[in-house]
């Protein structure tokens, strides 16, 4: 390993070691509140039966390892203070934040609130377009757009207790937003000469959603996280087709 890379690694080790030390101390502190020698659920505790034994043991060893890592890191950094620190490019950092925003937004905001088929399609379309086009300008626009919608959905999810009708209304709103995203991104893609990436993105997103949702919901009978205007209709269609097949 290059000494510059090693320097970055050891500096990161110091930060991690501090986090590990703090976490293990917190773990020991929290474990101290577990029953040690008093009675719990009718059982008179002794130290070796206590639920605190294993966490304290683990946290103590983790603490020792954390201190060891901290010392190793500090010694290295002091011995090689002349080695410059190389940082990751801004572009790479931008891609990282976009990835985190896409994944976290999907899981924390879209999945709990929006019909799974709708959220899957929009998520896949935006995700594929951002990285298949590989254009920093488009990635930046997608990041702002996606983050803004995800934060709004997160506020709605935690701030309001929506009933079924309101949820259906929200699904329709997302349909409108989804269409807008597809249309607006087409304009962006045309301007940036990325029309091929745009076409591939929406086609892939549509095919995967149309294939995956019925496989899980109808084929394997796995309920999807949120079933709204699309999934519910899909299930209804299944029963209609089944009844027609049976001649009812």
């Amino acid at each position, binding site marked *: 390993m290059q000494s510059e890379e090693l320097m970055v690694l050891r500096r990161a080790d110091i930060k991690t070691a501090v986090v590990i030390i703090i976490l293990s101390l917190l773990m020991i502190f929290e474990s101290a509140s577990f029953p040690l020698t008093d009675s719990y659920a009718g059982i008179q505790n002794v130290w070796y039966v206590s*639920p605190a034994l294993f966490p304290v043991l683990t946290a103590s060893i983790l603490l020792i*390892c954390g201190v060891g890592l901290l010392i190793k890191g500090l010694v290295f950094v002091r011995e090689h203070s002349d080695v410059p620190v190389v940082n990751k490019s801004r572009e*790479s950092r931008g891609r990282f934040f976009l990835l985190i925003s896409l994944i976290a937004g999907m899981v924390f905001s879209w999945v709990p609130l929006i019909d799974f088929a709708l959220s899957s399609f929009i998520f896949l379309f935006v995700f594929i377009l951002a990285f298949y086009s590989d254009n920093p300008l488009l990635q930046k626009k997608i990041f702002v757009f996606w983050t803004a919608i995800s934060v709004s959905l997160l506020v709605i999810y935690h701030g309001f207790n929506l009933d079924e009708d309101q949820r259906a209304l929200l699904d329709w709103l997302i349909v409108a937003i989804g269409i807008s995203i597809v249309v607006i991104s087409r304009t962006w893609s045309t301007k940036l000469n990325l029309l091929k990436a745009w076409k*591939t993105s929406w086609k892939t997103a549509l095919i995967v959603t149309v294939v*995956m949702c019925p496989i899980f919901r109808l084929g394997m009978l796995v309920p*999807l996280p949120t079933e709204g205007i699309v999934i519910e209709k899909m299930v209804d269609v299944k029963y209609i087709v089944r009844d027609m097949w049976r001649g009812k």
Partner: protein
Amino acid sequence: MDILSSFSVFGSTLFSLLSSPLNIFLLISASFFGIIFGALPGLTATLGVALLTTLTYGMDVNSALVALLGLYVGAIYGGSYPAILINIPGTAAAAATALDGYPLACKGQGGRALGLTTTASLIGTLMGIFVLVMAAPLVAKMALQFTSFEFFLLALFGILISGTLTSSDLVIKGWIAGLIGLAISTIGRDPLQFFPRFTFDMPDLDQGLEVVPVLIGAFGIPQVIKALRNKESLGEMQEFGRIMPEWSTLVKNIKNITRSSMIGIGIGAVPGIGEDIAGWVSYGAAKNTSKHPETFGTGEPEGIIASETANNACIGGALIPLLTLGIPGSPPAAMLLGALMLHGITPGPMIVVQNPDFLIEVTAILVLCSIAMWINGMFLAKQVVKVLSIPAPIFLPVVTLLCVIGSYALGLNIFNLYMMVLVGIVAYYLTKMKYPISPLVIGVILGPMADENLRRALMVSEGSLLPFIERPVSILLLLVIVLILLSKTPFNKKFKSILFFCLKQLKSNKRKG
């Protein structure tokens, strides 16, 4: 169980599996998708098994095992495709294969290289199965004598050895990863008194963290982030002609195949160490014992055979501790453990008592899986290779969506998704800072076993630690643990230098005398 009845169970399992068209379809398709999963850089056998676990939830145990083991065997083999054709190993297990596979493909012998890989993988898997069926009953019988003291030390040994051998930077990072896994495993109600630990009054944490979402997060999310952040792209694809098994080369390499199989099985049986290490060790052994080591790295078939035989033999090896002790031998085996538990099977020494046919059934399924892998490899290679032309920015978002559905589908709980993302981001940072992920996962899986057995052991001895040094297996395990720890301390270097100095002095004194 005598040999005759074992054969009868083996035959009847094969017959019942092959008489069901659904099982044959499952076998071929799981193996095919396994090869694709292994072939796509960024996707691993572990993630494949994790995602498939969700789909097998509604199946009976045998069908589920057909699908899971088919994918496992296929994925370990599938990593060799990009290794040979584009010089990028699909999985870490195939990294050593690329050293000679790609140069051979550049010489226009890609078909030959793939043929050798396919047949070597088949032989490796079959050798692993043979040792599994021979050794597992003996290990299980021995393990029946184990008490809580031994099980606690065994879990500790598993985490420690995995941390020691998988760390590519400082050894302490491997141990820290294992300890973080153990710490994560303490979340939830404790197994003996049901006291809520680190739940912070959140009902979702009462049951502890579910293993499958944690594994999907730990193995899936970091791969997606890493590949897309670093814009990992594939090299130029090499052409390959007809795939031939080339029996004559394999016959010439019998010694190499036997040695590589033994290395693979041995490494597979050590808890937490995967197929990648087996591939490298076996490649190194083949090079060191070769009459022409200078040809290694230039397209030497011996190198390809060594690494591919070993990484597939690892599967049988990894299943030995998994089925007999409940300790996974490799990360995909760890995932398999989670899947088996979902189907109501708890691997461990009691399995030979509670379900004596299970081991033979697994053997029969593994034999079918290795044959399916060979058939797929020989006849469907051209179709598999087409998948390699799909760019990562297209298939990785789909994999992310599969991770989301996979994590949700098992517990039907949104909270599992939150955990998957959090674990995924933490695992990404840990991977970036060169912390191995396998010990963390092994820690999460073995944590409850270590916790429960430590407290049970101390309850039996009324708090005395003496039984740890009074029981023979305990002493042995304790000694190994202490030796592992000491071998990685700075004192070890000083001790070694003092020892060598003393030996030199002794030698020179003898000469003078």
